[in-house]
């Protein structure tokens, strides 16, 4: 007697990649704008990035219906926070909220792979990376989504501090400037879109710094 299989899945994967890099006084969050299903493209101009608070931005890849529901949920909770505390949520606070919200649906998860980026209470850049059920960690940089296996090794090469076991001893990584970080993002997406069929069309780059939030776009391969 074979186990009964589901003839239908509640999930779909809309593909795409997300990256975030934290700097000393800025944070860059980027995602491609392609939304696909199977081998088809649904649209070339879909934003995977959502502003959750004044200094807190989230990029999510995975199942966009779940991503949209998650974004709405967080926006509503943020409004309640603002009413009660009379101020915006800080990035670390939002990071914890996102983790709790994801774990709340531990047994029917949001199919959403998130990177949260922004400035902490002292104005320093911070990036938090998540799995689908809310396990999270504060990191200096992160990538999620279909292109993450291509992007992460490259970011490790450029941004990760050398191991203390290496001989001869190497310097710690020099702090990355905002323009260099954006350049790195563009390079990384250009490479990912060469080999990952789900990544392409355009990159949306969001930069959070003391002056506020600004947005940039860059064209990618359409194939």
């Amino acid at each position, binding site marked *: 007697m074979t186990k009964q299989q589901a003839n239908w899945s509640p999930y779909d994967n809309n593909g795409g990649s997300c990256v975030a890099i934290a700097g000393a006084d800025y944070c860059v969050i980027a995602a491609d704008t392609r939304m696909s299903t199977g081998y088809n493209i649904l649209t070339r101009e879909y934003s995977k990035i959502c502003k959750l608070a004044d200094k807190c931005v989230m990029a999510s890849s995975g199942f966009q219906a779940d991503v949209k529901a998650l974004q709405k949920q967080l926006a509503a909770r943020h*409004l*309640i926070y603002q009413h009660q505390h009379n101020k915006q949520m800080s990035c670390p606070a939002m990071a914890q909220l996102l983790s709790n919200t994801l774990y709340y649906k531990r047994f029917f998860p949001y199919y959403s792979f998130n990177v949260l980026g922004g400035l902490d209470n002292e104005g320093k850049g911070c990036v938090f990376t998540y799995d689908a059920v809310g396990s999270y960690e504060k990191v200096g940089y992160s990538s999620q989504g279909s292109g993450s296996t291509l992007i992460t090794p490259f970011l490790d090469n450029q941004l990760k501090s050398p191991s203390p076991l290496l001989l001869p001893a190497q310097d710690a990584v020099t702090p990355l400037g905002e323009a260099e970080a954006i350049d790195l993002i563009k390079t990384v997406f250009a490479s990912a879109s060469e080999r990952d069929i789900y990544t392409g069309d355009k990159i949306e780059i969001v930069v959070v710094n003391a002056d506020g939030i600004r947005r940039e776009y860059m064209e990618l391969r359409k194939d």
Partner: protein
Amino acid sequence: MFRNQYDTDVTTWSPAGRLFQVEYAMEAVKQGSAAIGLRSKTHIVLGCVNKANSELSSHQKKIFKVDDHIGVAIAGLTADGRVLSRYMRNECINYSFTYESPLPVGRLVVQLADKAQVCTQRSWKRPYGVGLLVAGLDESGAHLYYNCPSGNYFEYQAFAIGSRSQAAKTYLERRFESFTDASRDDLVKDALMAIRETLQGETLKSSVCTIAVVGVGEPFHILDQATVQQMIDAFEIVGEQEGPAAAGQEASAEPEPEQGGAAAGEGVAPMDI
């Protein structure tokens, strides 16, 4: 109103067909410090008097933001008002979440009124002891509503509730015909004048009152003390005892040219009419 044998329960009618507990709840509203509201075609202004229990304590918060397009001023039991504000905020958030659009004000006040009515028909509850002036903007324009503890609600061009509100109402009755087409700044000025009426001679300073505005292109927000003091100075609304302290104490920035121009240009009603 005197004590009688029909006023113990909210679920007991009097032979004259009155619910005394509900009427007593409305009395509680009259005991609270004054709150006023007035509207034009595009803006609504809410104002209230800040009464502190003693010199040592701070005053209670009487104006609450409910959503970007709705705000409320309360008079009476402020605790009840706080709880109802939380309810209103929740309703707005849930509506926005489901319909991706702002909750129409008229719907919110009906929900509030129904909530208040429930408390007039349950033996284990008591009516809310707070009156609410709900100011909101939606597709059908600018609205000002008054919600009573009885579960009734009314729409107004301008209204005042709380203690010494009759003085403010008299002022508003005199001036209300000019409100529909008034500019935003004139509306705030009228609100300050109305508040001044309830102060009965006390000096009008920004520390004594709170003003909030909502309008087309202007989300609901409470004006900060410095701005309010500037407007009081610009329109020269001061109480009878004008001490040098009142004028000099606020470190106000350069007065905005638009306000000065508006005051001079308009046929402003003199204070001592």
